[in-house]
């Protein structure tokens, strides 16, 4: 055996034991998360899958669970999200570009930055009430798609700004200097050297922000609140409902069949969410492979 060190007491067995305990604790922590998610998913799948059919997607809600569907809520969600994206992308990216590329770094911009971060953490119901007061009441739009989209835009905007700033800040400064040195002005630098590298990151962040908004019921409850809607909005000034509200309503009903309908609705919502997240991942991967070249 090698000469033992006099000045050390390695206590290998004890260290191994402690290491093992922590490994086990952390594994359990992960398991709690994964298992509860699995239980939740299997329950929803078992309950909802039998009710999932083409009819469920194309029928309007009804008092009779057999023929009830999610069509108006799904179309409402698509309408609201499309408009929200339309509003938040230009405004959010524009604000991010201003803050990162134009704004002088002083107290005022610092204050604005901090407040945008704070806005991203405001509970969504607050935005719902603001939207209700501002768009439905003061601007008397009524409970229409446009009011819902504007409300969700307020909710999503800070997140889009933060994500876009992150993406813009990740663009190496060398690209900017390289463009400036060729005689580009500020906008040409942004358009030619900053945005091409930042756009994938901006898209990813925006999609993730939108997918957060898609599942939000709270802010829209104050605006929509209509559940038995038997038409699809034809323009932004139509009344509407969205999927989380429809699901929430079904969950609140005593009959078992409506519980199952809610589960089916959740499956559809999850499918949309997963698709959006997958899109975000694909965009990010493509971006990474490109910049590693």
């Amino acid at each position, binding site marked *: 055996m090698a000469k033992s060190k006099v000045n050390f007491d390695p206590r290998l067995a004890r260290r191994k034991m402690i290491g093992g305990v922590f490994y086990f604790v952390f594994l359990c922590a992960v398991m709690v998360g994964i298992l509860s998610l699995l239980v939740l998913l299997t329950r929803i799948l078992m309950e909802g899958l039998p009710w999932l059919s083409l009819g469920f997607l194309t029928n309007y809600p009804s008092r009779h669970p057999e023929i009830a569907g999610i069509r108006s809520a799904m179309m409402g969600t698509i309408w609201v999200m499309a408009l929200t994206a339309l509003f938040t992308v230009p405004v959010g990216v524009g604000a991010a570009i201003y803050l990162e590329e134009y704004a002088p770094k002083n107290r005022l911009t610092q204050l604005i930055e901090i407040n945008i971060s704070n806005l991203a953490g405001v509970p969504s119901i607050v935005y719902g009430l603001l939207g209700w007061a501002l768009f439905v009441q003061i601007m008397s739009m009524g409970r229409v798609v446009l009011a819902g989209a504007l409300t969700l835009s307020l909710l999503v905007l800070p997140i889009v700004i933060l994500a876009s700033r992150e993406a813009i800040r990740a663009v190496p400064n060398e690209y900017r200097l390289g463009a400036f040195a060729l*005689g580009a002005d500020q906008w040409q630098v942004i358009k030619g050297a900053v945005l091409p590298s930042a756009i994938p990151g901006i898209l990813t962040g925006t999609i993730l922000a939108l997918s957060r908004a898609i599942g939000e019921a709270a802010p829209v409850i104050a605006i929509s609140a209509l559940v038995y809607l038997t038409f699809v909005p034809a323009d932004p000034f139509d009344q509407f409902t969205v999927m989380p509200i429809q699901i929430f309503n079904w969950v609140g009903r005593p009959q078992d069949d409506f519980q199952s309908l809610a589960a089916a609705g959740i499956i559809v919502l999850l499918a949309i969410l997963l698709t959006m997240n997958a899109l975000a991942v694909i965009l990010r991967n493509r971006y990474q492979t*490109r910049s590693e070249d």
Partner: protein
Amino acid sequence: MNDDAPIFEVSSLSLYYDDFRALKDIDMEIRRYAITALIGPSGCGKSTLLRCFNRMNDLIPTARIEGRILFEGSDLYHPDVDATEIRSRIGMVFQRPNPFPKSIYDNVAFGLKINGYRGDIDEAIERSLRQAALWDEVKDRLKDSALELSGGQQQRLCIARALAVEPEVILMDEPASALDPIATLAIEELVRELSESYTIVIVTHNMQQAARVSHETAFLMAGEDRSGYLVEHGATSQIFTTPKSERTEAYITGRFS
């Protein structure tokens, strides 16, 4: 314009970053169609001085200059002078190759497009790549990403990109310091060729490089207060054989760094 007249005339130029004076009272002239090497220990202000010539320091909010630089006889920092226009006339190549993450073609096309090039873009790109001794290596892969090129190729692409805009002066900040000896020689040879039609100011840490490449050498040092000042400026052969200042001699013989 008279070919013997200096292209830049720097007089009592000081540059401050906030309160810190990085350059102190620089007086020098840059000769037209010559290669001027700026040498000196790290932190003495070589890059700072170089950035004064194409107003890149304007992009550093804390930077402020005193004194004057004449370019082609007129004040470079006059309020009526547009820094963007100046930078299309005075190109710059950076220490680390920084091609845009676009195709080789688009890298060279960028400067042409933003400056409203009226001629044939394809021709201009070929001409610039040939001038930068890169054409043969990339002519079959112009649409490939510039980031796929080797470091030395990337640096020559950056030179081609600068040449495409048809500048009068090219500023180079240690353009070969990130490259291996062979790529370095290729850049040096290129710089020599370019000096026939361009004025070149090149910062280098490498004494042999300065001696090999340049016609004139300016030696800068930082004083007690860390401000950079010009110690000596003259023909490269004179600076390297019979320097007037002992500090210059000590530096070029490697007795301090």
